[in-house]
């Protein structure tokens, strides 16, 4: 069982790193790009005897308490077999 956790800055929080990446991408000649936001991606390997609901609960708690700072970030959890 694996949990995939995506952590992204809240839309209201400016992302200076994303802006710098956006600028570089434009320098490469890519057009029609409106915005780039940087985030973090985690893969958590969980014990195989967990049910999907248990795995989701565990990963949600890890995401909320450790991986994301809810003051500035949102997170999304996906469970894959």
């Amino acid at each position, binding site marked *: 069982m694996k949990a995939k956790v995506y952590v992204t800055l809240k839309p209201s929080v*400016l992302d200076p790193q994303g802006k710098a990446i956006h600028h570089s991408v434009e320098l490469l000649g890519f057009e029609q790009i409106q915005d780039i936001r940087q985030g973090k991606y985690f893969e958590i390997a969980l014990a195989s005897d967990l049910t999907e609901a248990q795995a989701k609960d565990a990963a949600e708690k890890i995401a909320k308490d450790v991986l994301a700072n809810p*003051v500035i970030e949102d997170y999304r959890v996906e469970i894959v077999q």
Partner: protein
Amino acid sequence: MKFGVIVFPGSNCDHDAYHVISKHVGQPVDFIWHKETDLRGYDAGIVPGGFYYGDYLRCGALAKFSPVMTAVKEFAAEGKFVFGICNGFQILCEAGLLPGALIRNANLHFICKHVYLKIENNHTPYTNETQAGEVISIPIAHAEGNYVCDDETFQKLEENNQIVFRYCDESGEVTAEANPNGARSNIAGICNLDRNVIGMMPHPERACEGLLGSNDGRGIFRSLSNAIAAQVER
């Protein structure tokens, strides 16, 4: 009166803080390793600057799980003084002892220079020896000092006079040009509602020797010493 300087793996301003307290405040001070779980006997805990745990994940994110942080939270709840400087400020925000968060500087640079700070509130345990509106020169050294918070939090900070320091120019004007890192409303340091917990990005412990360019940091540590003395008297 006794100070403790908390040492995490990666602290690098711990000795500076220790030096200032022993030499310029003239009070007993110990280093406290982050595995410690008991802060009894101390009146103030300093969470110094550094790069705790290499700033992995987010600045201060992993340090908040150190055993000493449970003790620091209890210590703060008892009304004892907790002073977070730079990385220490980031930790106190991550640990929920102060509102908001510190993110990457708006210009993406690591900035290391002297800046001017305006004392916005001199009725705190950390500024009682300063004047309201006074301008002090204190260095910053950070890449993630850009203070952010939501509108509701900001309003509360203003209403309750929790904004203690703002970045300003030499004459004390709080301007966009004087804001080194993009911090909301030029915020350089804030305190909690009870005033016993403070966090600031600039390093007052690096501004206590004339040789280093400024003595303006001494007043902050002496203010804290005054506040402890007043608390002990009560």
